[in-house]
């Protein structure tokens, strides 16, 4: 696993452009995670856990900024646009904590490998960013595990559930991407085959300029 991860890491970080793209991807991931933690804080009654979620969100925000700034230095546009925020509602408290715990634990392993690869490549500035985040990731993995133990009746089962859910999401992403590819190829073919309709349409539905007649008085339907 370590050898495989190290090889994948070397491949994905072999040029500054690839490092920049990776930094942007991490910035988006951290921003998405920030949204999840922020909304989790607002949906959690337990004050201690809510405050931990808030601290976690604050860390993720810093991480997203650090990654985006470095991506910008390496030539990316530094724009972070991420989705997120629904995880707690979707998974429920125990599975959510298990999922976040596993994600953070995995991030520690991955960051160590990436830090090592970047150092070997001589990109010490990028490597330092990963190094600086490790303490945060360790803290996140630790508090989510403690919280999981206090929230879940069977923490080990929740961890297994979260792992299965995580794999299922990965599979769904893959199938969705396949479906998207098939759909887009079909849509392109359809579009190109439509050129007679396109020209006919210009004749039957020409572009109209000037004020068009009042729309009929319509209420809601």
């Amino acid at each position: 696993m370590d050898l495989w991860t190290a090889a994948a890491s070397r491949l994905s970080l072999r040029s500054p452009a690839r490092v920049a793209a990776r930094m942007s991807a991490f910035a988006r991931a951290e921003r998405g995670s920030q949204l999840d933690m922020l909304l989790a804080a607002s949906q959690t009654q337990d004050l201690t856990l809510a405050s931990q979620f808030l601290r976690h969100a604050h860390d993720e925000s810093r991480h997203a900024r650090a990654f985006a700034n470095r991506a910008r230095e390496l030539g990316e546009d530094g724009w972070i646009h991420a989705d997120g925020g629904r995880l707690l509602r979707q998974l429920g408290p125990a599975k959510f904590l298990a999922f976040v715990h596993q994600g953070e634990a995995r991030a520690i392993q991955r960051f160590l490998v990436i830090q090592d690869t970047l150092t070997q490549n001589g990109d010490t500035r990028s490597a330092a960013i990963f190094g600086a985040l490790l303490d945060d990731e360790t803290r996140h993995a630790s508090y989510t595990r403690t919280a999981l133990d206090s929230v879940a009746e069977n923490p080990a089962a929740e961890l297994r559930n979260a792992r299965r859910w995580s794999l299922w999401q990965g599979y769904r992403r893959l199938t969705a991407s396949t479906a998207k590819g098939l759909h887009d190829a079909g849509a392109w073919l359809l579009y190109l085959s439509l050129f007679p309709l396109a020209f006919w349409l210009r004749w039957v539905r020409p572009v109209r300029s000037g004020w068009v007649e009042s729309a009929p008085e319509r209420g809601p339907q």
Partner: protein
Amino acid sequence: MSRFQTLSELVRHFLHRERWVLLPLLGVLLLGAVILGVSTGLSQVAPLVYALF
């Protein structure tokens, strides 16, 4: 079932004199959407559908 209401409203919208010219395109697109939709739905219970599709 509620999706049938949407489909019937959609068809009624496109049956207007000015819009029927778009119906063939819409039909093909909807067919594609149904195929994708059904396979997405099936993937919940039979995840190998995509691998074969």
